[in-house]
């Protein structure tokens, strides 16, 4: 029997298209010939697999047709797990929330600033520099960028800082009363960084003037003072400048006399437009001819650019009182002004040796 005929016979046998006697003969052949039997089974399996494959392909295409009718996109929306509402809120509105938060922060800072200013007595800040405060602030990292580097050795002692300036060559120093108000002891430090012990010889809280005397044995006479003290009142809009220690090194700033009376018409003070900072207090206010016209001392907190200096006439009055109230002789003030006619930078250079950093040591 040829292969092809055998296959045809097998197919007819499987499909049941054989006549009864042919079928019997074929079954007989299967029993006798295991090879033929094997072929029957093999063919049956293979054709079965072909059929199943065909059914599978057909089923898959049916399922695809069904699938194409489903709105998968809508179902995806539904099936996606919703994140917590707060995360959604953030995702949808984070730009708005950020803006609102910024506004809120500005509002709070603004309110705090205004309220803080108002709580200070009459909005008038005396510009003594509180080192303790700075020290903690530096430690807390708040002012690192401002460059407030205070030497540790100094840190452990002095509590307030201000500025003072020489009245005479033998060591009389003028400063503000509020600078040394809480003093236990006072040191003054010159431009070279040398500190001298000083004692308070006169103070007047009313005009905010204090006179110190350097008592340190290491102190050498300063020589003639380059500036003079103006007795009369300076004019409005006169150009003035100051030189002092709002930071550890000397600092220059200038401006004009903006009002001939202080806060609420106080006749002791000038109002000036020279920017002042804590530490400037007690510094000299000089006019362009090199006359001391006042002692700088305060600023207004709720208004920008309003600063105060007490008039030089009150300093002179204090010196008069000094002679009466203490054992110190009435100081002989310099009458020869060597700053007049010099350029501003030359004037400041000459001032260097006569302006001191006042360091105040206080009990806590």
């Amino acid at each position, binding site marked *: 029997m040829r292969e092809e005929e055998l296959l045809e016979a097998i197919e007819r046998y499987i499909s049941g298209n054989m006549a009864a006697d042919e079928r019997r003969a074929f079954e007989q052949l299967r029993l006798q010939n295991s090879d033929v039997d094997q072929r029957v089974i093999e063919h049956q399996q293979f054709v079965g697999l072909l059929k199943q494959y065909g059914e599978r392909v057909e*089923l898959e295409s*049916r*399922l695809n047709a069904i699938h194409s009718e*489903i709105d*998968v996109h809508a179902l995806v929306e*539904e099936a996606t797990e919703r994140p917590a509402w707060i995360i959604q809120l953030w995702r949808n509105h984070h730009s708005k929330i950020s803006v609102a938060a910024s506004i809120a922060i500005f509002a709070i800072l603004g309110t705090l600033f205004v309220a803080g200013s108002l709580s200070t007595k009459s909005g008038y800040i005396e510009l003594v520099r509180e080192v303790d405060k700075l020290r903690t602030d530096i430690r807390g990292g708040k002012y690192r960028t401002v460059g407030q580097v205070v030497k540790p050795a100094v840190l452990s002692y002095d509590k307030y800082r201000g500025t003072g300036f020489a009245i005479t060559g033998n060591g009389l120093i003028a400063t503000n009363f509020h600078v040394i108000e809480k003093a236990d002891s006072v040191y003054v430090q010159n431009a070279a960084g040398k500190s001298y012990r000083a004692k308070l010889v006169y103070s007047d809280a009313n005009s905010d003037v204090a006179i110190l005397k350097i008592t340190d044995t290491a102190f050498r006479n300063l020589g003639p003072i380059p500036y003079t003290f103006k007795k009369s009142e300076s004019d409005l809009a006169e150009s003035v400048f100051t030189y002092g220690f709002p930071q550890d090194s000397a600092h220059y700033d200038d401006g004009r006399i903006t009002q001939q009376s202080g806060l609420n018409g106080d006749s002791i003070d000038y109002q000036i437009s020279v920017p002042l900072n804590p530490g400037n207090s007690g510094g000299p206010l000089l006019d362009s001819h090199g006359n001391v016209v006042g002692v700088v001392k305060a600023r207004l907190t709720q208004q920008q650019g309003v600063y105060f200096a007490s008039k030089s006439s009150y300093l002179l009055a204090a010196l008069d009182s000094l002679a009466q109230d203490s054992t110190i002789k009435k100081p002989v003030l310099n009458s020869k002004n060597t700053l007049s006619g010099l350029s501003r930078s030359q004037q400041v250079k000459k001032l260097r040796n006569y302006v001191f950093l006042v360091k105040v040591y206080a009990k806590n």
Partner: protein
Amino acid sequence: MNKESKIATPTDSEIVFGILNNSESAIKRLYVAYFPMVLQLIINNSGTPDDAKDIYQEAVIVLYNKIKKGDFELNSKLKTFLYSVCRRLWLKRLSQMSRYGGDLKDFQEHVPVEDEVEDENERNLQFSKMQSALGLLGEPCKTIIEDFYINNRSMQDICERFGYTNADNAKTQKYKCLQRLKKLFFQQK
């Protein structure tokens, strides 16, 4: 899932009888009713909607064959069975892609279906071999084989379609084609 799909959910026995009676609507209702459940499973376990389609269709085919074979025992709901098969298939797929973190987020109860999935896997392997063998066979053999063995057309039809002058030529051609197909099929590993 919304109320509409709940109302439309067919009962299990409806589906089983429908499939046994070759009802087109039964399989469609089954498919539509449970696809969202599987979609939810897949896309919440780092899959895409297309993955969901593949996995779900495979599972539906497993269920369909099980029902057709008549050995579907109603010891679990169709829904649970489908979910379990999809879950199993997706776990396998994830570990093949080595994307499986060892933690699958579940949304339904499930039953063990390892045997069914393994059987199906074996069958799929055979089918893909058949598919590529048929692909390699070329025309007209492919069409002759498909017409005769899959679509159950008579040799007479096939003669006319391919313009063979007599049935014997066609039979010889069919025989040669089948021999080649067998060879191609068994050659594959």
